[in-house]
């Protein structure tokens, strides 16, 4: 049976490329497998546009976008990394020149989003606005879903936040979609897959026993629960303590840093000062 290939268009908006770099850190499958092999039996991704990876540049790669939009309606996956700047008609961010004019991030997300099979908002910038949308939000950055809501674009959006996102969250979500279809994906009320964002950091934290015993770190580098040093793990939904990062070697709290709450829509304004205790009630 022929392999079914899903063209993937990966757009980078107001972001830092950190989510791409994080996906490069995928372990099993490795990034090479994502590029070259069937991800699940009979189905494969085909990365036709990614500004950091692709060989081409200039006009020919903009043609790839035009061709996809015109000829592959409903057949491609759109991944958006980075927020969408909307101030000044989107002119704070351009991904290239199209027909003699700047192709703004906002325009490309809307054009490519409306006819995609599925949109994945990757990382906290693309999902909720993230760092570039932090107070006073100089370029009026927004997440993909907010843009779609405003413009009446109805394509399904799955949010995979994180600053950056974890490679497993991305690969796992894609796998679930290929195996069982997007409708089978169980999402929370923020459109995040419950598979990865289903439990609190605090529930699974190795320092939880310290919290229960009232043993708190008073300064960075101390043992004990990091609650008093601003840990946001008690209202942050992610599986970092179980999965850990970088091939399961370490993660923020294990390395002595309070959780920043980087997968939550309140990040970074609601979750900062980052080293100050902020209760759930104070969050909003």
């Amino acid at each position, binding site marked *: 049976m022929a392999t079914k290939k899903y063209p993937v268009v990966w757009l980078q908006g107001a972001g830092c490329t950190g989510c791409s770099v994080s996906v490069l850190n995928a372990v099993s499958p490795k990034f090479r497998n994502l590029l070259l092999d069937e991800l699940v039996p009979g189905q494969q991704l085909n990365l036709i546009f990614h500004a950091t990876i692709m060989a081409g*540049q200039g006009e020919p790669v903009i043609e790839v976008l035009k061709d996809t939009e015109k000829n592959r309606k409903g057949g491609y996956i759109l991944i958006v990394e980075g927020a969408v700047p909307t101030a000044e008609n989107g002119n704070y961010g351009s991904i290239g020149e199209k027909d003699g004019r700047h192709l703004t991030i906002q325009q490309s997300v809307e054009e490519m989003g409306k006819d995609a099979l599925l949109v994945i908002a990757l990382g906290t910038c693309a999902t909720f606005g993230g760092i570039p949308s932090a107070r006073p939000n*100089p370029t009026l950055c927004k997440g993909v879903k907010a843009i779609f809501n405003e413009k009446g674009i109805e394509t399904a959006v799955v949010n995979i936040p994180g600053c950056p996102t974890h490679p497993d969250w991305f690969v796992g979500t894609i796998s679930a979609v290929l195996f069982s279809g997007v409708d089978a994906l169980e999402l929370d009320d923020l459109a995040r897959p419950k598979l990865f964002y289903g439990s609190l950091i605090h529930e699974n934290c190795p320092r939880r026993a310290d919290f229960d015993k009232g043993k708190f770190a008073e300064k960075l580098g101390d043992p004990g629960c990091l609650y008093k040093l601003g840990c946001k793990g008690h209202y942050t939904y992610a599986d970092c303590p179980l999965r850990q990062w970088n091939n399961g070697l370490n993660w923020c709290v294990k390395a002595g840093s309070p959780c920043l709450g980087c997968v939550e829509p309140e990040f970074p304004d609601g979750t900062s000062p980052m080293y100050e205790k902020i209760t759930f009630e104070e969050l909003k």
Partner: protein
Amino acid sequence: MSTKIKIDPITRIEGHLAIEAVIDDGVVKEAKSAGTLFRGFEIILQGRDPRDANRITQRICGVCPTAHATASALCLDDAFGLTDRIPDNGKLLRYLILGANFLQSHILHFYHLAALDYVDAVSAVGDLSPFIPRYEGDYRVSGQANAELVNHYIKALDIRRKCQEMLSIFGGKMPHSIGIVPGGVTEKPTEDKITNFLWRLNEIRDFIDNIYIPDIITVAKVYGDYFTIGKGCRRMIAYGGFDLPTGKLFKPAVVSPDLKPESLVEENITEDVKYSWYADSDSGKNPAEGQTKPQLDKEQAYSFLKSPRYKAQVCELGPLARMVSNYVQRDIKVKELVDSLLGQFDAGVDVLFSVLGRHAARALEAKFVADAMVDWLQDLKPNESCIVENEIPETADGAGLSEAPRGSVGHWISIKDKKIERYQVITPTAWNASPKDDKDQPGAIEQAIIGTKVRDKDNPFELVRIVRAFDPCLACSVHLLDAGANELGVFRVV
């Protein structure tokens, strides 16, 4: 007859960049380098807890976040009065973390950002995205040698991942590590972690010695003309960095085109804005004083980047600048590495100022850093403290100058009422990819392009090879705008 070549987007770099070149009789007469994304980090930082700058500025760039973590920690150490109190363990861990980031960034740069300009991936893997579309024509490596380079592209994906994993042992996670903070590092070295780190490092060193550097030589042998293409301004700056208990790994200097080093005086750095979307009243000021008032209807402006200059002169930053700086200051190891490479080509130091020179300097620097990291690991004192407590001062100023994979980086802070009043970042790409200055001198990348012979204007390999050899990082550079200037106004899109 002149023709204009516009490449927008320039891909396989970090961020959003466009290049325009005017070609006359096949030779570039004019060049423009323009950043096309603006986020406004300094505005966002205003009014926040100073310690948060260390977390937020990392998010400027996901490829080299650790460089911003380091520069911001040094900047906050300075403002908090901690600089002389950082435990040796803390310094060593900081630079093991930063060193790991250098290795991942350099390996990623050569194999995954630059190599597809030289290596014919399509002949090895077929007509497959993302390897098509591409420029066609000038691929000079063939057969077995080419297939091997393509295999190394794949292998390097694993090695760069392993650099990140090594980093996370002391840095917590990557990208956006959490280990480096004002006062030191949150992790603690234990014997098992040191050994774990060491053996990951040994695998990476093996790759650098036996694959990365030999591959650079393979490419250089068939693309020998690129030792003369992309010469650039030849004036180099390194702020210096990796300030270890045993001294600085990278020596600070400004090196003149005739290879004379002079000491770097921070006050001599100024920023011009004649061709940037900022008010002219601001031009020529030191970053510690400069305001950044956007003026977006400026007729001649074409970039969001300002033009940093040293004594009003154009300078290049990066691995080449650092290697040259250490070389002319007679660093024994760097001299050995550089001379041995030049010996293989029977060439003098002059050829370093070129496309291939920049790639070679980056590879040699990877070896220089990786080998030194072995010593730092051995200097760690297991289980001993890596951090001192900090307290936010009511009012203070601070500066943190360091080295990032792509060149020197500086962070500056002013604290008032325990909050950030002003924060400023100047990155290496801001220097390298800068537009023309007030004296109409083109920026470093622009100068490297001007005068280049372009053989095929439909496949202008020369231009993209020159630009990518600088390893530009646009996310790092186009975040300018001073905290004091909240009004953005309207700008003209070119």
